[in-house]
C-alpha cells in the first residue's frame, strides 16, 4: 500500500498543476463579473485549452481522459478557489444521459457548447407530487403532430433561470402503471409557455425554482429513448446524480469545529480541553477519515482501470447529517453568540450558522437520507424493495392525498 501516483499519474498531475498555476483567473479578471459570468469565463478557458470535461470523448469537447485522471484533475483544481457550481448538473447528469440516448447529430450539436460553458443545462425531474417517489410525476405531454404539448409543474429545478436547455421526464400515458407511462425529453428552456419562479429557502438563498409549463411544445425528435421508456432513461441521469452530489466537501468539518473549540471556553477552560467535546470531535474525525480512506480505495480501483465497489454509496448518508450535527454543536459552543448570523459579527463570517441552515437541504437533495439508506439496503446488501401498493395499477387510479 502507498499513496503515491504511478509515474504516468504523476506526470499527468504535474501537467495539470502547471496549467492551473498559469491559468486560474486572477481576482482582477473576475472583479466585474457576477457568479455566472465568472463560472463561464473559467469554463471557457478550460475548454479552449482542452481541460474541460476531460473524461468525455474528444469529438464532444473532452480529451478521452481516464477516470483516475479526472480524479487527479479535480483534486488539483480544488486546491484553487475557482468559480464553479453552474455546470455540475448539465455536465455531470444531463451529458451522460445525452451521450447514452441522443443521436450522434444531437450530441455533435449540444455537447461542445455544454463542455465550454456557453450553454447551461438543468434537470427537471421533481414535482410537487413526485419527490422520493419520482415516478409519481404528473406533468403531462400529449402528442400533436411532430410535437408534444406539455402542461404541468416541475419543482426544485436548480439553475432553471440561467439555463439554456433542460432534460425532463413527462407522463405520456396516465392509463398504464406509473413507471410505464413516462417518456424522457430535452428542451429549449426559452420555449414559449415556460414560467420560472425562484423558491426562497430557509437558508435565505434561492438556488431552486418552480417551473410551470403551459402548452409548451417539444419536438418529438427531442425525445430520448422510446415512448414509455422514460424511467429507464431517467435512471441513467440518477445514477450520475448520486455520483455528483456529495455531502462532505465544503462547509463545516472537523478542522473548523476543532479550531472553534480551541478558541471558546466551556466552563473555566478552553472547550477543547473538555472530555465531552474531545469525544465528539473524535467521532466526527473518524467519520471524515473513514470516508476519505474509503475514497482512496475507490481511487485505487480507478487507477487500476477497475470499477469501484459499492462502498462509496455511503458518502452522502454520512456527510450530510454530519454537517448538520457539527454545525449544531458549533453553535452550542458559541453559546449565546451562536444565534448571531452576521458576516461581520459571526465567527468565520457565519459559516456555522449558514451550514446549520443549509444542511437540512443536503439531507434531502439528490435522495433523502431515507432513500439513500434504502439504496444501500437494496443495491448493496441485496434486501428486497418495499412492497408497493401502486404496483401494476394504472397511474390514473393510484390513490393520492386529494382523492
Amino acid at each position, binding site marked *: *500500500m*502507498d*499513496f*503515491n*501516483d504511478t509515474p504516468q*499519474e504523476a506526470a499527468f498531475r504535474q501537467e495539470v498543476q502547471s496549467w492551473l498555476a498559469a491559468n486560474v483567473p486572477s481576482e482582477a479578471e473576475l472583479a466585474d463579473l457576477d457568479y455566472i459570468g465568472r463560472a463561464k469565463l473559467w469554463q471557457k478557458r478550460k475548454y479552449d485549452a482542452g481541460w474541460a470535461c476531460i473524461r468525455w470523448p474528444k469529438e464532444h469537447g473532452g480529451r478521452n481522459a481516464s477516470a*483516475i485522471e479526472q480524479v487527479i484533475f479535480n483534486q488539483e483544481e480544488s486546491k484553487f478557489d475557482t468559480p464553479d457550481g453552474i455546470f455540475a448538473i448539465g455536465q455531470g447528469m444531463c451529458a451522460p444521459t445525452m451521450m447514452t440516448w441522443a443521436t450522434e447529430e444531437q450530441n455533435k450539436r449540444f455537447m461542445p457548447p455544454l463542455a465550454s460553458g456557453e450553454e447551461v443545462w438543468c434537470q427537471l425531474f421533481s414535482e410537487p407530487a413526485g419527490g422520493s417517489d419520482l415516478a409519481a410525476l404528473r406533468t403531462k405531454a400529449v402528442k400533436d403532430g411532430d410535437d408534444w404539448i406539455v402542461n404541468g409543474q416541475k419543482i426544485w429545478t436548480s439553475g432553471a433561470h440561467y439555463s439554456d436547455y433542460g432534460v425532463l421526464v413527462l407522463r405520456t400515458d396516465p392509463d398504464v402503471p406509473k413507471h410505464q407511462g413516462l417518456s424522457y425529453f430535452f428542451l429549449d428552456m426559452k420555449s414559449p409557455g415556460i414560467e420560472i419562479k425562484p423558491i426562497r429557502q430557509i437558508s435565505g438563498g434561492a438556488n431552486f425554482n418552480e417551473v410551470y409549463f403551459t402548452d409548451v411544445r417539444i419536438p418529438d425528435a427531442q425525445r430520448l429513448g422510446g415512448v414509455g421508456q422514460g424511467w429507464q432513461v431517467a435512471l441513467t441521469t440518477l445514477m450520475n446524480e448520486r455520483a455528483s452530489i456529495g455531502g462532505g466537501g465544503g462547509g463545516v468539518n472537523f478542522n473548523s469545529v*476543532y479550531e472553534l473549540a480551541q478558541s471558546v471556553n466551556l466552563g473555566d477552560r478552553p472547550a*477543547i480541553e473538555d*472530555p465531552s467535546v*474531545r*469525544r465528539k*470531535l*473524535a*467521532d466526527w*474525525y*473518524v*467519520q471524515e*477519515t*473513514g*470516508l*476519505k*480512506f*474509503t475514497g*482512496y*480505495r475507490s*481511487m*485505487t*480501483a480507478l*487507477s487500476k482501470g477497475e470499477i469501484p465497489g459499492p*462502498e462509496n454509496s*455511503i458518502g452522502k*448518508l*454520512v456527510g450530510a447529517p454530519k454537517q448538520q450535527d457539527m454545525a449544531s454543536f458549533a453553535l452550542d459552543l458559541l453559546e449565546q453568540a451562536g444565534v448571531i448570523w452576521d458576516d461581520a459579527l459571526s465567527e468565520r463570517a457565519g459559516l456555522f450558522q449558514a451550514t446549520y441552515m443549509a444542511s437540512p437541504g443536503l439531507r434531502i437533495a439528490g435522495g433523502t437520507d*431515507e432513500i*439513500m*439508506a*434504502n439504496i*444501500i*439496503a*437494496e443495491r*448493496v*446488501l*441485496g*434486501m*428486497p*424493495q*418495499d*412492497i408497493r401498493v401502486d404496483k401494476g395499477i394504472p397511474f390514473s387510479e393510484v390513490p393520492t392525498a386529494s382523492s
Partner: protein
Amino acid sequence: MNFEFSDEQNMLREQAQTFLNAECPPQAVRAVLDGDAPYDEGLWQKVVEMGWTATVIPEAYDGLGLSYLELSVIAEELGRSMAPIPFSSSVYFATEALLLAGSETQKHEWLPKLARGEVIGCLADAESGGQLTAAGLTSRYADGRLTGRKIPVADGDVAGLAVVVAGSDQGPVMVLVDLNQSGCQRQAIKTLDPSRSHAEVIFEGAEATLLGEAGDGWNLLQQLYNRAAVLFAWEQVGGAETALSMAKDYALNRFAFGRPIATYQAIKHKLAQAYVKNTLARGNCYYGAWALDTSADELPLAAASARVSAIQAYYYASKENIQTHGGMGFTWEFDCQFPYRRSKLLAVNIGSEAIWQEKLIAAIEAERAA
C-alpha cells in the same frame, strides 16, 4: 494511489476464509463457549501449521518475515469467524512486545517458540477495575523479581510466557515472565465472553527479565497498544461483518405480517447503518494497516481512528443483529450472542472507546503542535 491489498494478500484471504469456514464454524465457537476447554486446541494447532503465528516474525527467528498487511488479512478473517484461540495474546501481544523491545537473546529464546506455537504468549497489564494508569500500578518489579496480581489476563491460564507491566523504583517496567515457575499462580476466571479464556495471575517473587529499559515500561505499553489496536480493529471489522450478514440472512427468511421482515424500512435502515459504520471502520483500518506496515509517525492517530470506529461498528452491528432476530436472538441456542460478547471483549481489552477518543485528539494536538 495504491490503497488496496495486493493480489497475493487477497489470495491469502481466500485461503484463510476457506480454511476457517471448514475448521471454525459457529459450532466450534459454541464448543468453547459451552465447554470446559479454554480454547480450541485442534484449530490452534492447524493455525500454527498454516504459519499464521509466524507471520511477521523475521526469518532469523524462524518466522515467515511477511508484513503487517498479511497479518491484517489474517486478523480480519479470525475476527470474522470469532475464532476461539489465543492468537491475539500470542501474536499481537507477546510476539509484538518482543519485536518492539526484546534483546537479541530474548528474541532468539522466545520468537521461534512463539512462531512454532510451542509456547503461547499473553499480556498481563490490567490489575483491577477502572482505567489502567502508570501511577496506579500496584505490581512491583525489583532485582529480577515480580510481585503482584493481574486480572483479567486473556489466555493467562494457558500461556507459557507473559509480558507484564509493573511499577519499579525506576518507574514502570515491561518484563518477560516464564509462567511455568513456582512463583506464578493462575486461575481461570469467568468472563462475558467464555469463548476466549481469561485468568487471574498472581506473581509471588517470580523471576522476570526486563524488556527494554527500566522506566520505559509505560511508553512501551502504549506502543504495543497502538500496534495491537490496528490488528484488533481488523478483527472487529471482520466480526461486525459477520453480525451484519447474520442479521440480513435472518431478515430475508423471517416473515411477519405476511412478508419478509427484510422488506420493512425499519430493518433495512438499521442494516444500512451497520453497513455504513462497517465501511467507515474498514477505511480507517486500511490506514491503520498502512501506518503499522510502514512504521509511520502517524501510527498513534491511525491506530486510534481504526479502534474508535471499529469499536462503534462492532457494537452497533452486534446489538442490532440480536434486535433483528427478535426473541430468538436472545436465546442461548442462537449464535447472535457470539458477536455481541466478542464485541464488548474487544471494546475494553486495550482501553475503551473513551480512552481512545482521548488518545485520538491528543495525537492530533501533538501533530499540530509539531
